[in-house]
């Protein structure tokens, strides 16, 4: 057979796959939906199955901790706009419980097996539960991840509780505290770390976030743990006991302790799945447990753990909205493309958070930096830009009500430009880099939503081959 004919045969196979291959997406939220749409845009015309454990069709989650809790938007009104017909078989309300890579089947909770030729894993994360199950089951104790969670918490806030307790001052906890103050509700925030947002943005910005909370009347307690939650006789939460032996009387508790990746269903599959997500290459192809790349399994969204060229090829997990959207497009493209056409998913990480009337935006990976410099604006007015540096180069930036400048920093970060960066504007404060004060990664705090997971697997699950002498 000549080389030309082999090439033609492969091209034929790819064309046939696009019309008859069976594709399965596990996970029916933002990443799963956008991947399905992108597959159709790529010209995939074969059967497509979308499996999701929640009964609702795909919905947007960011409003759940903001507009919904305020009572402006009902929790079931955040269904995602569709950008094209996906013509899929939807299996909603049924969780995937297992994966058999030999027979190429996904096992469902009802015992059914769904066969696939190529699989996309987009099972995302769930809210980390309060560790004491009996206390977590008390009425008035909430987590927030799903629209049902948000509907329940909204109802509880609308009933004008005497005090709300928020455990964990990451982005979700801080946003909910902000809504409570907007609703005029007394709120106590307890954070194990030294300041709000410290894991994601470091102690220098955390100090500003703490001042912001206190200025808005939040009873913020840092460096403190909640030891226990106690109920009244009817099983409704009544008070919390803290590690400094103080007691907070409260009718509503939000536990915002970060998230847990939904990888349990992949146990025994032989994929590199674990605490930090599912390892994959920059083209969204999953690794097996030995670091061998698979041909038919792709990963996207909150659980994809992929190496990033800008961050020394460390593996990143990004619980960001646009990581799901952009990753979905790349994964879908690569699932139906031949090797030379495959693309990398190398986003410049970006997120936003609205709280206490301030728009917080960021690009890059802040915890990769160890220095910070305020480059524009005024801390006092809470309208500023700051850049993060690592070994003399800029690796991230954050703005408070200064989002229009973020693009300038994004361009610098993409070029690995020098740190501190050249002045961006006229409103330049005195620029002096200081330590960014990120907590030691071993100190427990609520997990930030961008995580550098390092080069090493957290579990020694790899099977090393014995050397034969």
């Amino acid at each position, binding site marked *: 057979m000549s080389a030309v004919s082999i090439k033609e045969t492969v091209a034929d196979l790819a064309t046939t796959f696009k019309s008859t291959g069976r594709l399965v997406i596990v996970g029916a939220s933002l990443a799963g939906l956008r991947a399905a749409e992108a597959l159709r845009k790529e010209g995939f015309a074969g059967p497509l199955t979308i499996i999701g454990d929640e009964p609702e069709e795909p919905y947007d989650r960011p409003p759940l901790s903001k507009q919904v809790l305020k009572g*402006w*938007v009902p929790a079931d009104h955040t269904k*995602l706009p569709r950008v094209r017909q996906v013509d899929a078989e939807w299996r*909603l309300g049924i969780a995937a419980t297992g994966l058999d890579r030999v027979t190429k089947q996904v096992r469902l909770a009802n015992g059914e097996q769904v066969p696939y030729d190529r699989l996309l894993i987009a099972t995302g994360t769930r809210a980390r539960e309060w560790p004491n199950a009996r206390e977590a089951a008390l009425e008035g104790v909430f987590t927030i991840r799903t629209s049902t969670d948000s509907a329940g918490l909204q109802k509880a806030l609308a009933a004008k509780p005497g005090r709300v307790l928020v455990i964990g001052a990451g982005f979700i906890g801080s946003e909910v505290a902000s809504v409570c103050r907007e609703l005029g509700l007394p709120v106590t925030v307890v954070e194990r770390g030294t300041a709000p947002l410290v894991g994601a943005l470091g102690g220098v910005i955390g100090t500003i976030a703490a001042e912001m909370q206190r200025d808005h009347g939040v009873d913020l307690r840092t460096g403190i743990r909640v030891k226990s939650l106690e109920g009244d006789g009817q099983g409704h939460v009544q008070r919390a006991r803290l590690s400094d032996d103080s007691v907070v009387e409260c009718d509503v508790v939000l536990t915002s302790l970060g998230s847990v990746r939904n990888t349990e269903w992949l146990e025994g599959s032989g994929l590199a799945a674990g605490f930090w997500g599912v390892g994959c290459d920059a083209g969204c192809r999953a690794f097996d447990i030995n670091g061998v790349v698979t041909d038919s399994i792709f990963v996207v969204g909150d659980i994809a753990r992929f190496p990033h060229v800008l961050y020394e090829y460390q593996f990143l997990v990004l619980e960001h909205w646009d990581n799901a959207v952009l990753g979905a497009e790349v994964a879908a493209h690569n699932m139906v493309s031949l090797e030379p056409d495959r693309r990398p998913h190398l986003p410049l990480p970006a997120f*936003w958070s609205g709280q206490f*009337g301030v*728009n917080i935006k960021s690009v890059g990976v802040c915890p990769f930096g160890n220095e910070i410099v305020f480059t524009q604006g005024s801390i006092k007015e809470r309208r500023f830009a700051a850049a993060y540096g690592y070994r003399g180069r800029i690796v991230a930036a954050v703005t408070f009500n200064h*989002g229009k400048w973020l693009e300038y920093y994004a361009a610098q970060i993409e070029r690995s430009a020098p740190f501190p960066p050249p002045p961006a504007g006229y409103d330049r404060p005195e620029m002096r880099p200081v330590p960014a004060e990120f907590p030691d990664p071993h100190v427990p705090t609520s997990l930030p939503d961008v995580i550098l997971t390092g080069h090493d697997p957290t579990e020694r699950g790899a099977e090393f081959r014995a050397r034969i002498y």
Partner: protein
Amino acid sequence: MRVVVDLNRCLGYAQCVFLAPSVFRLNGEEALQYDPNPDDAMRQKVLRAAAACPVQAILVEHLIAKEGEMS
């Protein structure tokens, strides 16, 4: 109708807030909040707001699909 705003892209120019104030609001100076499921009667205003967005961050569903239809 369904609406989603890419808030990474949004820079708070607030053109949408002027054109459809019952759908788009600013919380503070720059943080946009919006109703992701406005009434169909708002369609013209929302489409105008989406068209006027200087960074084109507003995505309005253009599929003609009945509520809850899953295809």
